C-alpha cells in the first residue's frame, strides 16, 4: 500500500504579516513558513495507516525554507521516502500551480492513496486536494477525520456541521482531504530527527514552470483593520468584573436566584 502525502508550507501566523510594495501580495522577506497544520494531520493519518496495515509513505514538499526540517521530522516519525519539489517559488505559488506540478510528480509514484490537508490558511483559489485529484484523474473526498483501507476501496468518515459524520466508500486510488487524523500529530524526539538527518536522503523532482491558470488575480491585499472592535475594559480584576456584571444586568441577562 503506497501512500503519498503532498504537503504545503504556509506563513507562520505567530509572526507579523506585512504586505509588500506592490500592495497585492504578502511581503515574503520576513515571512516564516510552517507546515500547513492540516497536512501535519495528513502525515499522521498516513503513518497510522502504515502502522496498522503496512505499506510505504512518501512525502512531497515544495523546496522552500523549512522543507528539510519537515521532511526529516516525518522520516523520524516513520515516513519512507522524502521528495522535494524544486522550482521558482519567489512569486508565491497558487493551489492550481502547485496541484499541477504535484500531479506530474505523483503520477509517476503510482500511489494507492493520496492524503493531503483539506485546506491551508493561505489558500486563495480553493484547496490543493480537489484540484490535484482532478489532474490525477482520481476521486476526491474532503473533510475526512478517520479512515480504514480495504481492498481497492477505503471507508472514510466525512465531517459535517453539528458533529454529524457520513461514512463514505471511495474507490482507490483516490485523493482524500484530511480535516483531522485519528490522533493528534505525534511528537518525535529531536535525537531521532538528528539521526534521520544522517541516514535519510531527500530526493528532488523538478516542478518545471508553474502554471497558475485558474487563479483569480489578487489586486489588493491589506491587513485587516476591523470595522468594529470590542470596547476594551481596563482596570483591575475587580473593576473589570464589576463592569461586566453591569453590562449583563443592563441587558437583563442576570437571572435572579431561586
Amino acid at each position, binding site marked *: 500500500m503506497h501512500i503519498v502525502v503532498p504537503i504545503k508550507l504556509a*506563513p507562520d501566523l505567530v509572526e507579523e*504579516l506585512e504586505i509588500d510594495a506592490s500592495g497585492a501580495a*504578502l511581503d515574503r522577506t520576513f515571512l516564516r513558513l510552517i507546515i500547513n497544520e492540516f497536512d501535519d494531520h495528513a502525515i499522521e493519518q498516513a503513518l497510522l495507516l502504515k502502522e496498522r496495515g503496512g505499506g510505504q509513505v512518501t512525502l512531497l514538499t515544495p523546496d522552500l525554507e523549512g522543507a528539510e526540517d519537515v521532511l526529516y521530522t516525518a522520516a523520524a516519525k516513520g515516513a519512507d521516502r522524502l521528495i522535494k519539489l524544486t522550482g521558482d517559488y519567489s512569486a508565491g505559488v497558487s493551489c*492550481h500551480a502547485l496541484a499541477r506540478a504535484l500531479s506530474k510528480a505523483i503520477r509517476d509514484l503510482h500511489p494507492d492513496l493520496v492524503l493531503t490537508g483539506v485546506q491551508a*490558511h*493561505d*489558500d*486563495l*483559489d480553493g*484547496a490543493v*486536494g*480537489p*484540484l490535484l485529484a482532478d489532474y490525477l484523474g482520481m*476521486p*476526491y*473526498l*474532503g*473533510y475526512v477525520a478517520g479512515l480504514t483501507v480495504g481492498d481497492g476501496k477505503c471507508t472514510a468518515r*466525512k*465531517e*459535517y*456541521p*453539528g*458533529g*454529524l*459524520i*457520513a*461514512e463514505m*466508500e*471511495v474507490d482507490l486510488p483516490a485523493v482524500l*482531504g484530511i*480535516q*483531522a487524523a485519528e490522533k493528534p500529530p505525534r511528537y518525535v524526539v529531536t535525537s531521532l530527527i538528528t539521526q534521520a538527518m544522517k541516514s535519510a536522503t531527500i530526493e528532488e523532482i523538478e516542478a518545471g514552470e508553474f502554471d497558475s491558470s*485558474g*487563479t*483569480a488575480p*489578487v489586486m*489588493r*491585499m*491589506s*491587513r*485587516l483593520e*476591523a470595522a468594529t*472592535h*470590542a*470596547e*476594551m*475594559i481596563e482596570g483591575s*480584576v*475587580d473593576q473589570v*468584573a464589576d463592569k*461586566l*456584571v453591569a453590562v449583563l444586568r443592563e*441587558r437583563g*441577562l*442576570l*437571572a*435572579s*436566584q*431561586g
Partner: protein
Amino acid sequence: MSQDIWVVVETLRGEVMEISYTSLAAGRVLADGLGARLVAVLLGHNAEPLANTLGAADSVLYVDHASLADFTPDAFRRTIAGLAKDSTPRAILFGHTSMGMDVAGGVSLDINAPLVGSCQRVRIEDGQPWYTSPTCGGKILAEGQIPDPACVLTIVPGGYKPEAGRMPGPKEVVRTAPSAALDGLRVSLKQYVEPQTADVNIAKEAMLVAIGRGIQQPDNIALVQALAQELGAVVCGSRPVVDQGWLPLSRLVGKSGVSVKPKCYVALGISGAPEHVEGIGGAELILAVNTDPRAPIFNVAHYGTLLSMFDLVPALTEKIRQARQP
C-alpha cells in the same frame, strides 16, 4: 451564454444549510449589480419542497435523481458541471464547506473557469464585480475583480446574515434531469453516524461560555463550569479543546460544529479564528477574554478585556453570585 448567477444549495437530511442562505445573499448582490438572474441550484431526490425557502432566488433549478438523494462528491460534481456546460452561468457560488469544497474545484476545471476561494463579501465597483476574501487566519484581506466570462467562488460565512438570503418562495422552479451520466460513481455513502449523546443542544441555548486553547488544561474547566453555573449557561468550546477530548464533539462551536445564536457568549481564551467565529455570528452579546491584544476575537466581540481568564473568572463568578442575591 447566460449571465446568470448560480448558487449551489446545500442540503443535509432534509434541511437547507445556513451557508446557502449566506451565499444567496451574496449572489443577490452580484445579480442586482450586474443585472443578472439569481438561480438557486438544488440537487436531490423528491426534495422539491426544500425550494420553499429559496425565494431570494429568481429561479430554482431543481435536479432530481436517486443518486442525488444524499450528497456525494462524484455525483454532485458531474451533475453541476453538466448543467454548467449547458447553461454557462456568469458565476457559480458554492459554500466553503464540507460539501462545497469537495465539488467546487472539479466543476471549475470542468468549465475552465477560475476559482476564488474563501470569499466573504462581493461588491460592484465601477460596474465590475469584486470579491473580498479573508486569508491567513483572518488577519489579511485579499481583494480582486471576479474574472469573466465565468468564475466559481466558495463562500465563507460572516459577510452576510443568513436571514438576508432566506425568503419564502420559490418564484419559479425548473425541474430537470441530470445531463451527465451518474453511473460508475467512485464515491458512495454508506451511512450517517450521529454525534455521541448530544447531551445538550448548544444551538438552542441562550447563555454560552466558550473555552479555547487558553484554558491550557482540562482541570481548569471546573473554574469555567462554576461561572457557567452562575450565568445559567452551558460550556462549549472551539476546535482545539474538542480535539483534545476535553469537551464532547456536541459542544463544538464553529465550522465543523454548531452555529449558535445565544443572547450572551462569553469567549475565554479563544483567539477568534475564522472557523470558530463563523459559528457565533448570531450571538447578540459577545464578551471576550484574551491576553493577546491582537486576537481576532476582539473584532467580533462587543466587550473585551486583556486580563487573564484565570484571574478574572473566579472574581466574575463571585460577583455574579452576589449580584443575583435577591
